[in-house]
């Protein structure tokens, strides 16, 4: 069984095109200023369709994380154990990503991270690594 890879939709294509170009893109509402992720056809806060794509810095902090020891499908078994983190980006949106499990830098909520990209079966997926320094 292969890994589930993202199939871009009309709404999400700019995001995945961004990943392929090394850019972490997100939508912001021109009407109310809300940043959002998952990409949508309208703003989740005010429902206006006046959305604009921006490029994020990739900098953020860990909201929560887990180390997975039981894979959902056989395709993920070779990666075990692996880290899944929810990251709050500085630009005000949230992403789920995998993270390097660096034993020298224990995972912690509030840990600053930078989201870059990792090639998986020919697709660039967002991937976080911890930034050294104090946790907030």
């Amino acid at each position: 069984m292969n890994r589930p890879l993202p199939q871009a939709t009309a709404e999400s294509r700019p995001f995945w095109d961004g990943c392929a170009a090394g850019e972490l893109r997100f939508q912001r509402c021109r009407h109310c200023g809300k940043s959002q992720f998952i990409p949508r056809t309208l703003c989740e806060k005010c429902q206006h369709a006046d959305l604009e794509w921006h490029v994020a810095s990739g900098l953020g902090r860990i909201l929560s994380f887990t180390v997975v020891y039981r894979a959902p499908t056989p395709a993920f078994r070779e990666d075990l154990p692996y880290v899944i983190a929810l990251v709050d980006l500085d630009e005000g949106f949230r992403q789920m990503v995998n993270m390097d499990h660096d034993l020298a830098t224990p995972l912690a909520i509030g840990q600053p991270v930078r989201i870059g990209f990792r090639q998986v079966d020919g697709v660039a997926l967002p991937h976080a690594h911890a930034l050294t320094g104090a946790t907030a």
Partner: protein
Amino acid sequence: MTMNAFVTGAFDTAIGKLPGSSCMGLHAEAALGAVADAGLALGDIDGVLCAYSFTQPHLMLASVFCEHLGIHPGFCAAIQAGGASAAIMVMQAAALVASGQCRHVLAVTGDNRLTGLSRDGAVAALAEVGHPEFERPFGISVPASYALVAQHYMHEHGVTSEQLAAIAVEHRRHAARHPKAQMQAPISVADVMASRLIASPLHMLDCCLISDGGAAVVVSARDAARDTRGQAIEILGAGQGHTHEHIVAAPSLSDFGCKASSRTAFERAGVRASDIDVAEIYDSFTITLAVELESIGFFERGEAGIAAEKGELGLGGRLPCNTHGGLLSYGHSGAAGGMFHVIEAVHQLRGRAQARQVPDARLAFVHGDGGILSAHCSLVLGTH
């Protein structure tokens, strides 16, 4: 207050590993049992609600069920809200009978998730609730999603894994009093901690079972309830809360829809959390129950595990909770998992819970949670 609706029949099949069982077979057995419990004939049923199945998935499961059983009701629909389905089915059945559209609605669930799917198959099927683009490519699973909630919760409130484990231990103690429960051997906090990590901080024994089983209730209108045989249990209040589907899109990792659903249910019933005699609350993981118990207002933030350690969730405790053993130890077979909570509340309110009876139980709270704490439905049930 009243919803003008009554649970008049309740039945659940055997639970656990049931070789030779099937999704529709379990549905039929549960349905016939609930109708018989109500003292009704199949022809009295004029509304049917089903949920969903993993082993026999279908776009029109309620129609498939009616065809299987050979009935032709005046109302028939399927409700899909994950673990909240059973409670939502009862709430919807109540609306159907209270509005006069139906007299007796059958709400039926069942799946042979264990023998029909295998553990790996069930885990893989469940993982599909993850977002196809923004969660599943990262290897998300249902346990991993709840683990994200657990890690955050433990960090915020200084809760330990041992405190969450105490919840699983109390569930096993409850299950040991139920002759049908799938898991009855006592466990300790040390056993939970020593069980394999599934997704940190959740261990195997923090997670619900995978089972075969079915369960059904009949919900009747006030006047129609007089035609039934068993003791009718009144649906006093019901409410729902919905905040997201995917955990990546949850507006908060601390507050979920159970807060709104329970508030509405309590208000409609005209009761407070402190009035509840027995609670049957969705416990897909130890963290699920901890978050719900605190969000609903039964315990202060961060204190559900401490309460479990003190025996407050046990028989004789402040809030006897999941007296059948819950999804953690009684069993979990899809939408029927949530229906087992409803059935146990009916047993308790009828005074027929035998060794696990809460003395003088008059008010029960039932709660279902679907997705990753995404869809919530609360019920307040009472003796009539």
